[in-house]
């Protein structure tokens, strides 16, 4: 075989291999975003709410916990607020309803209070001094929503705004997978 033919053949093999890798790679499917934390115990979260009530995630085992990373000036956060309100209201009516928490990202207590006073939402708003909680969850941009199961394992990460009905659907799937 001529060296040029060998070269062409080699190049074809390399390109084919890359194509196979691309085809077999796990693309983004569904609502949930990838994170190494999925299926792992949630990072420790110990903080206080903007009303100075202590909060420790480890103490909420036995409840589904929803963390929504939020900033009152972020447009997608404002856009998703009505969907979160509806979700929180539905969950509050369930005996095993998920507990919703806002994690305040790079924002002041006053601004957050003003936002919720104007737009309602009576769930706890947790401080994230120095962004420690955001780093622990790998949150670079808000909004992000995370679901933690009653055993304390991270089950879902949603990047960006939550669309109407998505959280309800995801919670139903997660509850079904837990056999609830």
């Amino acid at each position, binding site marked *: 075989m001529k060296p040029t033919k060998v070269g062409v053949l080699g190049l074809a093999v390399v390109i084919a291999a890359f194509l196979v890798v691309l085809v077999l790679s796990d693309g983004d499917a569904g609502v949930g975003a990838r994170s190494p934390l999925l299926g792992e115990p949630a990072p420790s979260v110990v903080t206080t709410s903007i009303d100075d009530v202590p909060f420790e995630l480890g103490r909420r*085992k*036995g409840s589904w916990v929803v963390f929504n990373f939020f900033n009152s000036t972020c447009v997608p956060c404002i856009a998703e607020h009505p969907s979160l309100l509806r979700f929180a209201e539905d969950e509050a009516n369930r005996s095993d309803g998920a507990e919703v928490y806002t994690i305040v990202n790079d924002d002041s207590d006053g601004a957050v209070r003003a936002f919720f006073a104007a737009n309602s939402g009576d769930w706890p708003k947790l401080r994230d001094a*120095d*962004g420690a909680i955001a780093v622990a969850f790998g949150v670079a941009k808000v909004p992000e929503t995370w679901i933690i199961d009653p055993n304390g*394992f991270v089950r879902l990460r949603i990047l960006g705004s939550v669309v109407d009905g998505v959280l309800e659907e995801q919670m139903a799937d997660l509850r079904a997978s837990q056999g609830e």
Partner: protein
Amino acid sequence: MTKRRLMWALIILLSIGMLAFGSLRDSGPLTQQDRIDVITKRIACPTCDGESVFVSRAPSAQSIRAEVARQVGDGVRTDDEIVAYIAERFGGEVLLLPRATGLDALVWILPAMVTVVLVAALWLAFRRWRQPVVVATSKRSLLVSFAIVCVVGLGGGVLVARQAGQRLPLQTATGGIEDSTASLLAQARLAGPTNVTAAIELYGRVLETDPDNVEAVTYRAWLIMLSARQFDESLRNQAFVSTITALGRAIELDPTYPDAMCFLGIVVYRDGGDAKSAKEFVDRCLERDPPAEVRGLVEALASELNAELGE
């Protein structure tokens, strides 16, 4: 060996020795701020293009810098472990120095391979220029040369990658996190409903390293009581006493922890038959806002107690 060859060998040896000294020498202790700077220069800002956390003023970069400072201050993790922690959270793309595993390893291996191939090609070219008579090379020797170039290039690349790449948690050099308290507690919670014995053992392991862990004290006691219910009265009584003691200790350790108070109410009534005391514990439990799973258990008991006490 001619004088010229000896000279070349000496130069190569000296170069290798200096390279080894440069890469292996101990650069001495750094201050905490130096460590923070070194680490943050290795991490890319996740929300900006081409900036390290060290230079970026973006909020996410500031959060990462604060986390790095906190971990350096704690003094528990090494630089590599801190970088690996950040990469684990934000993904490998925040590493300004690519990892030595998976596809990332190609970044280290390919340049080394290309260098070896180019050096070999140059050597061949120089040889041809010096010897005008073309030496006919057999296919076999060409294949052998190609194999040697591949092995040397690949081996060199792997060595460079191992020396310069990052190590992630659970890789041998950085130790494991499988046996951390959080991980054991999570495993115990998961085992709890189906494998009570395993859960009790896992909570026991938590208490070996952290004897004041309220969750482990509470749930171990609760599960011991639940599993003792299937045995004879003597064993049940023993379990009752030890459970009450353990739950009392948990409440002493953290009076705000609702679960211990809730389980105390349940055990005092179901296993001790004392409705009045149980009611008191159940009320205190509900005041402390227990998680949904425990609340469900206690709310059912509360109505039962109210009926019995005629309230």
